[in-house]
């Protein structure tokens, strides 16, 4: 369990805090979405929850970050590696730059944990398979497309098998199938007991994987509830967050005053589509 207790955080030199009095509990096995308009504090919350701010980023924080009840502020970052992982929106920031192949890149984390060779190989193979990028293993990470790099960066994190994972727009550069694979990998990781926090503008992705969704606005946590309720909350639109496609369509149908029978037929078709997507997520993926 990862807990933020009444956290207020201000970047060095900033006139005011970027987070005000935020409390969040991320339970084991839970996927929690983080939504909000641009510059509401999503990335800052990710940095604080991962322990990077203020430890590495600087700035000042009041309140506490707890891992399984322990205040970890005094622990050095390397001791937190297996306990919290973070994925940044831009894979260029994340890749080591020292690995000559995708395989070495993904193995880099577990190698540095001092694990036995056999386990490094097992974890690397498993992470590559989870995101179906085994065919890229011999490629130079620098020569991959942005989306492929994003999958490699996330595979590198999966190989660390963190107990808590924080992801800031992990699918920004991914094609729809790539996004779905990341969604599948996150669902599997959560099922193995990890707590996952994922910030995204793509609310379709949040609708697919999250149990709960938090919404931040101007540095404050303004909504916290079950994913289905929050993503259909009319306040989301007012806050400037794009609703999931299904909610957007239903709302547009209501705005157009389509007859009730037509709207019901539309709602049934949307539900049927979600059902097919669910089946596809279970079996889908790339060769």
């Amino acid at each position, binding site marked *: 369990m990862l807990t933020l207790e009444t956290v207020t955080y201000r970047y060095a030199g900033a006139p005011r805090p970027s987070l005000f009095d935020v409390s969040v509990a991320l339970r084991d096995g839970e996927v929690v979405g983080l939504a909000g308009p641009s510059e509401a504090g999503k990335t800052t919350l990710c940095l604080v929850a991962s322990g990077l701010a203020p430890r590495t980023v600087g700035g000042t924080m009041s309140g506490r970050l707890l891992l399984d009840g322990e205040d970890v502020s005094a622990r050095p970052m390397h001791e937190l590696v297996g306990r919290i992982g973070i994925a940044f929106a831009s894979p260029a920031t994340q890749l080591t730059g020292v690995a000559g192949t995708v395989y070495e890149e993904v193995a880099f984390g577990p190698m540095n944990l001092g694990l036995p060779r056999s386990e490094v190989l097992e974890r690397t193979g498993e992470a590559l398979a989870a995101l179906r990028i085994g065919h890229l293993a011999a*490629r130079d990470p620098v020569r991959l497309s942005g989306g492929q790099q994003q999958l490699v960066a996330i595979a590198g994190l999966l190989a660390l098998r963190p107990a808590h994972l924080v992801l800031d727009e992990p699918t920004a550069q991914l094609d729809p*199938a790539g996004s779905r694979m990341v969604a599948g990998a996150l669902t599997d990781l959560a099922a193995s007991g990890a707590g996952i926090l994922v910030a995204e503008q793509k609310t379709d992705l949040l609708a697919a994987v999250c149990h709960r969704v938090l919404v931040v606005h101007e540095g404050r946590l303004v909504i916290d509830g079950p994913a289905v309720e929050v993503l259909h909350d009319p306040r989301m639109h007012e806050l*400037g967050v794009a609703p999931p496609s299904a909610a957007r369509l239903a709302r*547009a149908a209501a705005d157009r005053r389509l007859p009730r029978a037509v709207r019901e037929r539309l709602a049934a078709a949307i539900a*049927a589509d979600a059902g097919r997507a669910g089946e596809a997520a279970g079996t889908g993926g790339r060769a």
Partner: protein
Amino acid sequence: MTSLAFEAVTFEYPSGIRALDGVDLAIEPGERVAIIGQNGSGKTTLVRHLNGLLRPSAGRVDIGGEDAAGLTVAALSRRVGLVFQDPDRQIFAGSVRSEVEFGPRNLGLRGSHLRAVADRALDVVGLAAERGTNPYDLGASRRKLLALASVLAMETPVLVLDEPTTGQDLRGVAIVRHVIEQASANGRTVIAISHDMDFVASAFARIVVMRQGQVVLDGAPASVFGSASWDALRSTYVEPPLAARIGAHLDLGSTPTDDALLSALASAGAEGLEPRTPEPRTPQTPQ
């Protein structure tokens, strides 16, 4: 007016990876074209040929009737403005104003004319109040809009945007949409790479679909997202927008946008909405 043409263009990276494989594509002045396809299908490699960042291994790129091979990057940059996916690869100046002025200054603009084009570009993306701000004090989504403004300010006849909507909230997406409409209304050619299918279907008149370095579909949204194209889309891990999937499910023909679907629903009425039997194959499980 600048027409663009790829004639049997092939591009191989030094490692032997063939990123473009015999691409033929002609784009007329003033067209609005979206390029979609799976990660690593060659989209970014393709557009980098338009401003000389990459040169073909074989074939010819024609820019406004001239072979790009004979044009310097400086000459090409007057004709084609390219906004990168990651703004941090593009931004380097100490203030928003000097960032936006850099391009037009290098094209020879000075004084009030330079100031006017920079102001106009900043206005369009909603950053007029941030002229004196350091770009790195802006959040990621506004840095992305700044990168867009700095290319807009060059007033090139061709505008190329790589993933312009990622990380943008509703307001940001609306700004990008407005920029594209305005540029198009002024007769400029707009080409965008995107994984955002709702955006692609509603903001572009023509969609080019890539797979493994080749163009596999090329047409209007209603044709590319119509159910007859779904097998080809599935082969490159693209799925049509929800509105297109629902329209096919309800046998309403091709309805690539929410508007098209709602209009078709309104004219069909409740009695005209029986799902087609057998149900169409959905493109959600790439093989």
